[in-house]
């Protein structure tokens, strides 16, 4: 096993272990902390995949913004945090069977499929090409602007919904 593979296994264990604790932990605040750990693992896997920009965005948006948002929501709904009760509902066994079955069915297909392998590596100016393609009218300028309008609408809607009504 090479060094890169060892690092991959490390980040994979971090991601999956923390993800498992996210869905299993009894205390909601601990679940958020485990979620952050899992997102750090995914950011590490992005670095291994040579998608440095996405790794940075993952740290900024997911770890910096979304998890803080979730922590705020946990704090604002503290009545639940004080007496959490059982974290899982009565269909948790069926849910485990479904999720496990999904993995068991999908894993052999992924492992057995002869994936083609690209011969070239990642070009040196990959981040520059990514930035240019986002503002190029012939590529992703329209979806990019649409995404901006959508997130603006979602944020205004979120403020409107969460606002205290008098």
């Amino acid at each position, binding site marked *: 096993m090479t060094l890169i*593979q060892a690092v*991959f296994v490390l980040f*994979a264990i971090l*991601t*999956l272990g923390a*993800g*498992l604790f*996210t*869905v299993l932990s009894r205390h*909601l605040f601990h*679940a*958020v902390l485990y979620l952050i750990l*899992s*997102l750090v693992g*995914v950011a590490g*896997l992005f670095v*291994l995949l040579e*998608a440095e*920009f*996405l790794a940075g965005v993952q740290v900024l*948006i*997911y770890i910096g*913004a*979304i998890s803080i*948002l*979730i922590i705020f*929501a*946990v704090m604002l*709904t503290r*009545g*639940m945090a004080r007496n*959490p*009760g059982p974290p*899982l*509902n009565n*269909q*948790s066994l069926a849910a*485990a069977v*479904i*999720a496990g079955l*999904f*993995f068991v069915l999908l*894993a052999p297909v*992924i492992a057995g499929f002869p*994936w083609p*392998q*690209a011969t*070239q590596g*990642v*070009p040196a100016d990959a981040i520059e090409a*990514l930035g240019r393609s*986002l503002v190029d009218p012939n*590529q992703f300028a329209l979806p990019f602007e649409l*995404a901006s309008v*959508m997130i603006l609408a*979602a944020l205004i*809607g*979120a403020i409107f*919904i*969460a606002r205290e009504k008098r």
Partner: protein
Amino acid sequence: MVPLTWYLLVATALFCIGVYGVLARRNAIAILMAIELMLNAVNLSLVAFWRYLHPTATTGQVFALFVLVVAAAEAAAGLALIISIYRNRETVDVENIDLLKG
């Protein structure tokens, strides 16, 4: 070099963990967190496909970025809904949020 299948297997496992969380958790915020895990798994497989199949194209990373934007919008709107529900009903337990039940 790490084989592509390793990344895909990790992404699949992460997605299944998210599926379990969505189906089994009672707290609405925990369900949202499990959805974030599933979106991350999809992003991971998208970037892995980009790296191993078409590293010279930008499409894979752009798609992952759009998934990220949608995840941010979903988290903001979803958490606002949860806070609003908590203010009105004093609970975020999805078993007790049955306003639309006939």
